[in-house]
């Protein structure tokens, strides 16, 4: 399955994705996820949404934006916002350095609309095939965590992976000028 | 195959005619009116002329009359694109030396069939 690239021109060596992993035979009941580590926890995002993975670069701050928006970067000529998930999830911040990773994702907002955004994570973990039935609904975490971000919980190799719903997570009004409600995927 | 001079002030008509004729393997020289057509006809070996009648600068009938004055154009077939009701135009065209006419609107099949008769 080729990664579709829209708003950003084709990637080059920066990409650490091993494309040979993608393209394994999948049936409709299985999804592939890229997992990453953030503050000791493992999170997963739909691999079809992953545009590329790059290192941490200088970011240009944008005034009067939420704190978790670190700023914007130049991704081969396109302006892409970078979201700091630690701040977003209210976890303590880290100093970002050469090992910091930015995952560039394609976020869908509305019927025809898609945007490219980057999230800052501690490191990339692996790619897993997960059957839909293996994803459990996320329990209610209470007020502390916005559970709309979480699609579900999966167990892979005895570990818990938090499957993220990036469309909900990255489409809030603060991040988009458009006041369209993102369709519920359920 | 044949080199055809297609004259019409409407770009979409020129496109359609050109596309159709080229698709049949012919070579097409396009012109936007009579003046342009005369200029483009100079020094070219043309096998067939297809021309609209109503055009600015020089209409189709005048064009045909002018072309017939040129030696290499004396006997080649020249077809006018006319509308059904323009009976007098047909006569004028013939008087000017037109071979015949194709009635508008026409579809590509009709165009090819008609030029097939004269080529």
């Amino acid at each position: 399955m080729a990664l579709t690239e829209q708003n950003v021109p084709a990637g080059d060596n920066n990409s650490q994705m091993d494309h040979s992993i993608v393209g394994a035979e999948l049936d409709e009941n299985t999804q592939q996820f890229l997992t990453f580590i953030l503050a000791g926890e493992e999170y997963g995002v739909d691999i079809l949404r992953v545009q590329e993975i790059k290192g941490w670069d200088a970011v240009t701050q944008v005034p009067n934006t939420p704190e978790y928006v670190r700023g914007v970067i130049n991704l081969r000529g396109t302006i892409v916002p970078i979201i700091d998930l630690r701040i977003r999830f209210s976890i303590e911040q880290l100093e970002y350095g050469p090992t910091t990773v930015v995952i560039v994702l394609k976020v869908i907002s509305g019927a025809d609309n898609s945007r490219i955004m980057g999230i800052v994570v501690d490191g990339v973990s692996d790619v897993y095939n997960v059957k839909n039935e293996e994803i459990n609904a996320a329990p209610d975490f209470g007020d502390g965590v916005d559970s709309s971000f979480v699609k579900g919980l999966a167990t892979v190799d005895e570990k818990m992976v938090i499957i993220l719903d990036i469309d909900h997570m990255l489409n809030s009004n603060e991040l988009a000028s458009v006041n369209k409600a993102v369709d519920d995927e359920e | 195959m044949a080199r055809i001079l297609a004259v019409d002030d409407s770009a979409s008509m020129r496109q359609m005619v050109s596309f159709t004729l080229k698709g049949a393997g012919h070579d097409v020289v396009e012109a936007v009116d009579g003046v342009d057509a005369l200029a483009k006809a100079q020094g070219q070996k043309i096998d067939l002329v297809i021309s609209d009648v109503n055009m600015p600068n020089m209409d189709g009938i005048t064009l045909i009359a002018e072309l017939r004055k040129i030696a290499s154009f004396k006997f080649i077939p020249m077809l006018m694109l006319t509308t059904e009701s323009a009976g007098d135009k047909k006569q004028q065209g013939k008087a000017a030396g037109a071979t015949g006419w194709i009635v508008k609107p026409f579809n590509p099949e009709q165009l090819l069939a008609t030029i097939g008769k004269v080529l």
Partner: protein
Amino acid sequence: MTFDMSQFLATFYEESFEGLDIMETELLALDVGEADLETINTIFRAAHSIKGGSGTFGLNDVASFTHVMETLLDEMRDGKREVTQNAVNILLESVDVLREMLSALQAEDDLDSERIAIVKKKLDDLLASVSNESTAVAATEASVAEPATETAVPQVSGWTIYFKPHEDMLQTGNDPVRMLRELATLGELSSAVDTSSLPEFLLMEPENSYFEWTVTLTGDIKKSDIEEVFEWVEDGCELTITPIASDVTSENSELDIELIKTTFEMLAPQGEKLVARFYEELFKRFPDVQSLFANTTPEKQQTKLLAALELVVSNLEKQDVLVRTLTEMGMRHKNYGVKIEQYEAVSSTLLDVMQEFAGDAWTDKVAATWKAALALVTNTMIAGQQAEPAAEVENSDASVPAVATEKSTAKKAPAKRKASTEASSIRVSIDKVDELINMVGELVITQSMLSQLGEEENFGEEQIEKLKSGLIQLERNTREMQENVMRIRMLPISFVFQRFPRLVHDLSGKLDKKIELILSGESTELDKTVMEKIGDPLVHLIRNSLDHGIETPDVRVAAGKPETGEIHLNAYHEGGNIVIEITDDGAGLNLEKILAKAKGSGLVGESDKLSDEDIADLIFQPGFSTADVVSDVSGRGVGMDVVRRNIRALGGTVDVKTTTGQGSVFTIRLPLTLAILDGQSVVVGEEVYIVPLVAIIESVQVDTSLVNGITGQAEVYRLRNEYIPIVKLHDVFNIKPLHTEMKDGLLVVVEAEGKKVALLVDDLLGQQQVVIKSLETNFKSVEGISGATILGDGTVALILDVTGLISISKKNASNVKKLTVAA
């Protein structure tokens, strides 16, 4: 092979919209009293093209609608119809309807069939009304078929066709052989050619046609099919088409063909002498027959006779053919005026002459056989004479006007509106393209020079110098190319201006005002996209002038002004911008009313002091309209703020200057291109921002003695004789500045929409052209920021939006005020 016409539709729509614009402009320019023929012709041709194209590409509704327009215009250009104001108005309305129809079709939307029907009826009624001549309705497409005078001949087994092209037929590019070939496709064909008219070689004109053909075509064939083959040349030839007579004399079978042939062969060597003798005898015996041959020479006629005899004899086996041929001949003879009695004369004379030449060989049997044969021939020819001539059926204009049955319902079930119907193609003058090609050429040269340099092994002083000059050249090439490419997207503003004469014409009529529209600077060019988007705001501003600006004639006269108001639309280039001015000599803005309204709605504080310019600028606030009566022309005050917003979205500004009683001037400034900006880099804290050069008036170092505070919240700077509010960018953006003391910073004085502010920055860097990248594509719009750009080092710099900054700073100031008050 099925053809997909839709690939041509885009071009068709584009040229049709252009054609409609031309029609409109020319209709407006028509002098109703003395209509200029060339103008009418132009309008006619435009309508004709649209009709032709729409028919060809399957848009039948459009075709039938346009057809009536075309008919009216055709009458006008022929002088058969007077050009009245009423007709012009109806045609103008029709142009509107056509535009709507084409737009709807292009967007695959529903057609407004009611509106179309109403206007079509107006057109039809106009057409039906008596035109100049007292002839009845000139509905040239009346579906009256010329009555076919074709006789009701029952199914014939075939046809005999006589075809003799006129001598000059070849000079119309028609080829008889082609026609015969075509006939052959209709049925079984056998033909006989008569070459007797061919003159001697030296007298022969190779460009002429001398042959005549008699063709037999068998099969179940319609006469009209045959006529169609000759459709183009019916005036250029003799043509008779007769059905094959069904009775074939049974005597044929008893004819001793062998004998006839033998005799003929025997006589053949003396054929010429024989026929000469024949005519000699014939004229001797029957002098009055001579008149029949007045149109021909004896030699010709003799040759003809001989050929005819040969024809008959050689075709004796093919009696069907023979019969038809003879029948044909008979008919022709009738046309020449040959009388039936004269056949007898011919027969008997011929027999005698043949006997004379045959001598002893003319046995009784031979005589009898030949007599029978000739009788047969004669009878057949007589039968041909008596057969009713097949009258020519004229190519009837039997076309029924294409009645539009095309469903005007949506083509797609839930009408999914196609994305913008704006034309996505552009016409470029070939000069611009050639220039660009030249530039690319130069760029290639520079590139190869630089790359050569890169291959050099020793890089010393010399190479560095070469490198520098090469880079300078590269910069020059790139800049020239960039300018050129931008120019490709530029079109003269006349494209937008041209719809205004119509607008003013219609509206001033509706409002009972006399208004003249003057256009200037129509050739000023601007970016195509900008032009497409500036249309609506301009319309609104002009409507505003028409409605609220210009007074009614009596009010004007009372005020000592000329009855006819003037609206002047002007465009010119200034700096990197295009400036559009809309000036009217109307009543100007009522500043008192505006101020009162603003105070009333709380926009302005009771005690606030505003300059005249500030008051005028209030009209751009949302919901602002001091119109006493909400006229349907300008709408209810939803206009001006939208106008400003739209213009801002294009990176431009709009402001107004007014003089009560004398008029107003609306000034729109737009960047020449949307993609590139001349910017001044400034440093604020750790960030670099770009300030659009076009907004900068000047930059000054801070002289703290010129800084004054106002009510503790705001600070102003005294620059010569004005007080300019200071905007501290680090405050607005929440950044830590490099310098905390104002005296170490710099002030960049900028202007937007008539207002000036001074931006406090830490430092100034260079000026450069930057490519504008959208922040909104992947993120969102941020107030005070109009976009972003990528600097030479690859980092992102944000581009400031001066107008936005001014709003923010005002808001902050009032927030502070509120807080202070609340405290």
